[in-house]
């Protein structure tokens, strides 16, 4: 199973990669939505974890594009909020087709459990 992690923050990406690799998945990293979409199209992934506030292609746009491209793909959206508050983004992300939403800071174990559940692993 392959997981795509999209986040513009290096530390965040490294963290998510390690958690996912230790949980037993192969991880592809991308610094923004455009790069993520590109990598997914070249070699499709099963699940995407994407941050919502990023430069270049916005997270929300990435979610709707992913959903259009690959209806079966699992998507987890993460938002840290900011001047507009995380709730609005997360609600929108869910409407656009994210399977689960996480608000920072979150527990990495919980994230790992959610990924396992979405990908049908025990």
């Amino acid at each position, binding site marked *: 199973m392959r997981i795509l992690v999209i986040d513009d923050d290096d530390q965040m990406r490294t963290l998510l990669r390690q958690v996912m690799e230790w949980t037993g998945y192969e991880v592809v990293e991308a610094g923004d939505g455009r790069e993520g979409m590109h990598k997914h199209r070249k070699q499709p992934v099963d699940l995407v974890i994407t941050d919502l506030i990023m430069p270049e292609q916005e997270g929300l746009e990435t979610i709707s594009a992913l959903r259009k491209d690959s209806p079966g793909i699992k998507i987890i959206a993460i938002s840290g909020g900011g001047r507009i508050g995380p709730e609005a983004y997360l*609600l929108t992300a869910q409407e656009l087709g994210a399977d689960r939403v996480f608000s920072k800071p979150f527990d990495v174990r919980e994230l790992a459990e959610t990924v396992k559940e979405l990908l049908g692993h025990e």
Partner: protein
Amino acid sequence: MSETQVLVVDNSPVMRRILSYVLEAEGCRVHMAADGLEALDCIARSRPDIVFTDLIMPKIDGEKLSYIIRNTPELMDVFLVVLSGVALEDNDVTQRIGADVFIAKGPVAAMKTHIQAALERFRTNQRGGSGIIQGLEGLYPREVTSELLVSKRHSEVILERMTEGVIELNDEGRIVMANDAAIALFAQPEERVLGRYLAPLLPPPASGQIEAWLGQLGDPACFVPLVFSYDEPIVVGARQVTFNLVPVAEDETFFIIGILRDVSQRKSLEQRQRQLEKELQHIRKLEAMSLVASGISHDFNNLLTVVSGNIEMARYVNHDERVNRMLDEAVKALNLTVQLIRQFTTFADTYLPQKSQVLLHALIEDVLSQALSLSGISYHLACSDEDLAITVDPNLVRQVFANLARNAADAMGGAGRIEVSVDRVDGGEETARTGQSVPDGELVRIIFSDTGPGIAPDILDRVFDPYFSTKEKGAQKGMGLGLTIVHSIVKKHGGTVWIETPPAGGCTVTLYFPLHEATAADSLAPKGLGRRILVMDDEEMMRFVNKKMFEYFGCTVTLATTGEEAVDLYRRHLAAGTRFDLTLLDLWVIRGMGGLAAARAITDLDPEAVLVAISGDGGSEAMQNFDDHHFAAALTKPFSVAAVEEIIDRFL
């Protein structure tokens, strides 16, 4: 048969002598008084069987004296004979005064006959005036007297209608005249006020000050007014009253005029104003915090995720117990930090409350049982109606009671009791009862009290301030945000809250939430329900966020990416009869038509269109002079829920 006791009241010594001569010859015991005030003193010493009184006298006149006699239970059946020198001119006198006999003053011989007749009527117990004035024969009305009487009445009417209380005191400080407004201020019937000393009618320290002042009036150097000014009013019952006492010299002696003004209303208005200002100051502080909170929370959340994630992983790979214990401590501190950041985001004006119908009793019970489960503190929850439901964000309202419970538990130091009562009240009545500014309408009132040491009065005003804490500070002990958050959450729900330390001890927090009856239509905040909004922005994120915010208020939102698309949508909706109530246009669009051109095109289509300019650059010429470009308002991105609400209030 015992002697008949008669009181003769007349300011003319000649008349007094005539009357006493006739009455004593008839076997009566006669007492005499020169005016109404003296008469009252005589009556107080020994109750007469008959009172013969003149009408026009200084100090308390015959009419007032009669009124007092007829309205004092123990004097009511005194046989009252009025002798009037102006009987012919004062034609409704018999209607005004409930006398048993009226006699017009005239020739002595005639008067003597009528006095004897009156005595005979008393002896044969013929009471109740016939309305006939005895002794009018041979008298003729005098025009000058009529005119003087009219003028006297006129002055009396003016005095009675004044909103200020006016009283007259004699040189001993006794009340000889009081108008309606003054009587109302003393909150006693007129017959209980007239003739009384002023000082004992008032509470200390005013009473003492008046007595001391009266005592010095004999000294010409001290013949000056006594003033209870607006800043030091007298408290009479629930009212605050300014009081000016002015001595006026007259012949060899003096009298005193007193002017009373009820300033309670003005005082309470001023108090309310001060309270509002305090609230406003508080809101400003919160606004500043909210700005900081939303600004830093995003960065903090990112950093905290990385820190906690790495600690989790370190625990996963590490097998050294000592290191794991250290990591556990780090996680504890981290969790507190996370909580703190969460609390901060509550202040953010962009926070959208997730409202639903909440059973208040169950929610409070749940929070208290959790918060106090391991403490030595008992609680009791009394609810007028266990099914009482209000529309609130349950997570926020839980925070309110959790914070209150934590504060109370800390204050009581591990042993004590919390009492919570919940009931329904009317906002207007609560404002009147408490003097606090409580919102109008039907409310839920929650009174939360503990048996702790309470809060010192001098810091009560500050307990809602951010980072004000009576507790020892530190991440473990609380940061002084508990009550600030309580205040912020209650305000977010349109309620109000205050804290007091009752004389009986402990600390009492009173909270009010608007009561929304459990109706399905009453969801969220449907201010803009059914209104159509068009939002044009080329940033997808902004489009979605704006959509969410307007939808929160019940609006139907249509999105456009460019000016061309917005103009096209506007045209189609206009033609279809589903015109947009409000159109938001982004001024700077990277690809395609921008907001300025779109505004021109839409105004050409529909001169009545309501357009709002949006831009990330609030300082630009077009944003500053938005009305020159067909816009009704301008909003700088990113904008808050409050800004959206304001736009809805203004235009929808």
